[in-house]
């Protein structure tokens, strides 16, 4: 099973140097604002995007980050302190194979030559997907994925998940020819976008996940729009589905409820989980890896694991 194992970043955005090791099946990145969570996710995406694939709805990953940053992924702002005299170097270990990205020149290197000799690696890197809070309102997701979802008969599990997470009594989901996506109840139907933000975001996230297999799914702040009660069930649905489809999860969050929900859900799904507390000090990224047991003990004894920098 292909897994992202580690990443090493040099001179990329706010990170002068940093390593994160021992990624698990479910990984939660926590830390203060500007601690490097999104930069790590972007760095992984950039390396993988060099394999040429896009996400399930055809978006280039580097384009997604450029949209968030409002800048070019390979522009001056990508370089630490905008110093282009020194190259950016990103190395990831995927399933024991090292893949590097250097800027400039934009080139991909691997311990395996050529890279495509490892089909599982290409499969993994080509299909890495990102889900941001704003994607919860992106109708492209159902418009592009619905035929595939129907083919796989994944629509029924989506209905089940929607009902479980939000206590609804949805009978069916349907995409009309005019691209109206309907949620069908027993005696009425309403467009998805008339549903609450939590349900819209959760369903689109689960749709995206249902199209993935043997890759990495990056979720930015999945707690957005979710009530803490729903978040528990949403996390359970995500972890269960990820386990079934052999998808590794990387979750960037500011929410302790989100950390708790995904640790609980990963345990129920019998997936290995880890929390990485990121701290950025003068460009040096320090990533403290915490096991679920350590998180539980620290939280129970009054330490907010998002604020570890106060203690060490």
């Amino acid at each position, binding site marked *: 099973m292909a897994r992202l194992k580690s990443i090493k970043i040099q001179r990329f955005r706010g990170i002068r140097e940093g390593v994160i090791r021992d990624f698990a099946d479910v990984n939660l990145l926590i830390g203060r604002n500007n601690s490097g969570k999104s930069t790590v996710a972007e760095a992984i995406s950039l390396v993988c995007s060099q394999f040429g694939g896009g996400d399930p709805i055809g978006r280039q990953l580097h384009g997604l980050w450029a949209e968030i940053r409002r800048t070019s992924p390979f522009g001056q702002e990508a370089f630490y302190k905008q110093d282009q005299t020194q190259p950016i170097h990103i190395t990831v270990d995927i399933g024991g194979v090292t893949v590097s990205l250097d800027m400039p020149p934009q080139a991909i290197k691997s311990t395996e030559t050529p890279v495509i000799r490892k089909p599982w690696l290409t499969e993994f890197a080509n299909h890495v997907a990102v889900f941001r809070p704003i994607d919860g309102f992106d109708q492209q997701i159902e418009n592009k994925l619905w035929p595939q979802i129907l083919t796989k008969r994944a629509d029924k599990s989506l209905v089940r998940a929607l009902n479980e997470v939000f206590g609804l009594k949805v009978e069916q989901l349907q995409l009309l020819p005019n691209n109206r996506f309907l949620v069908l109840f027993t005696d009425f139907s309403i467009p998805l976008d008339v549903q609450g933000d939590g349900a819209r975001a959760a369903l689109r996230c689960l749709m995206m996940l249902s199209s993935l297999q043997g890759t990495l799914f990056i979720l930015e702040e999945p707690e957005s729009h979710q009530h803490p009660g729903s978040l528990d069930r949403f996390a359970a649905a995500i972890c269960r589905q990820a386990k079934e489809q052999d998808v590794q999860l990387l979750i960037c969050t500011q929410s302790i409820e989100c950390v708790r929900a995904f640790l609980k859900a990963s345990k129920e799904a019998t997936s290995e989980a880890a929390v990485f507390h990121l701290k950025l000090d003068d460009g040096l990224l320090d990533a403290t890896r*915490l*096991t679920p047991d*350590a998180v539980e*003990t620290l939280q129970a*004894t009054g330490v907010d694991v998002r604020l*570890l920098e106060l*203690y*060490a």
Partner: protein
Amino acid sequence: MTCAFSSFMPDSKRIRLYYEGDDDRNVLEQMKGGGLLAGNVEVAKRRKDCPGREGMVQDLAPFVGIGGRAVALTDLDGNIIESLTKWFQNTLQAALAKEEPPGTINAQERISDRISTFACTSDQHTGHVALIAVGLPEDEEIKSSQIDRFAIDDYLLRLARDPQIYESNPDLCSVPYAGCMKKLMEMVQLLRQNDIPIRNSKRYLHFLRAITNFRPSSAEFAGRLVGKAIDSTGQGRLRELFSPLLEDLQIAIKQLSS
């Protein structure tokens, strides 16, 4: 109230106090609230399913594993300091070995008669713990009370026996001080005459609560006693009453902050 430790904060990283039980927690929280502990010191919560001194070590091990700095307050009981320190070292070593990544104690230093420090390293971080043995084995009044199991209760008994603190405490003063102390000693003597051992301050405090008709828990009693003492007594006298615990905390915190 002025912070007694304000001049000993070269590092603003927080230091956590770990302890054995609810009585200790309430005493420490009152001390913290009364400004007797430095601003960067916080009192840890304890897990209910990990009680006692063994549980304390289990609770602090993950914190030390992330590079945290902790003070562990452990009742001396009937031990000698060396055996208590050895027990703590072995228990902490075992707890650190179970952490991920596993940690180990790579340095130990005896700071004073009652304080030892331990440096604990893993692949990722180095954390530090200062162990303080709590109790008043050298105190004449405790000795004369034939107490040979020492704990934080020794300080509470000392507070309760202080006439000024007793008289200013509305939980106690409904029974006159002299009568209460007389009755307390009568109860202790009666039990001893019947071969029932009274070897720790906690038993004295139980009798005191009975005499004064204080119904809530011993932890509540401990917290209220210290809180009222802080409210009614000057800093100088408080330092005397909490000596050597306050000095030990000061030394340990200074050591951990350096």
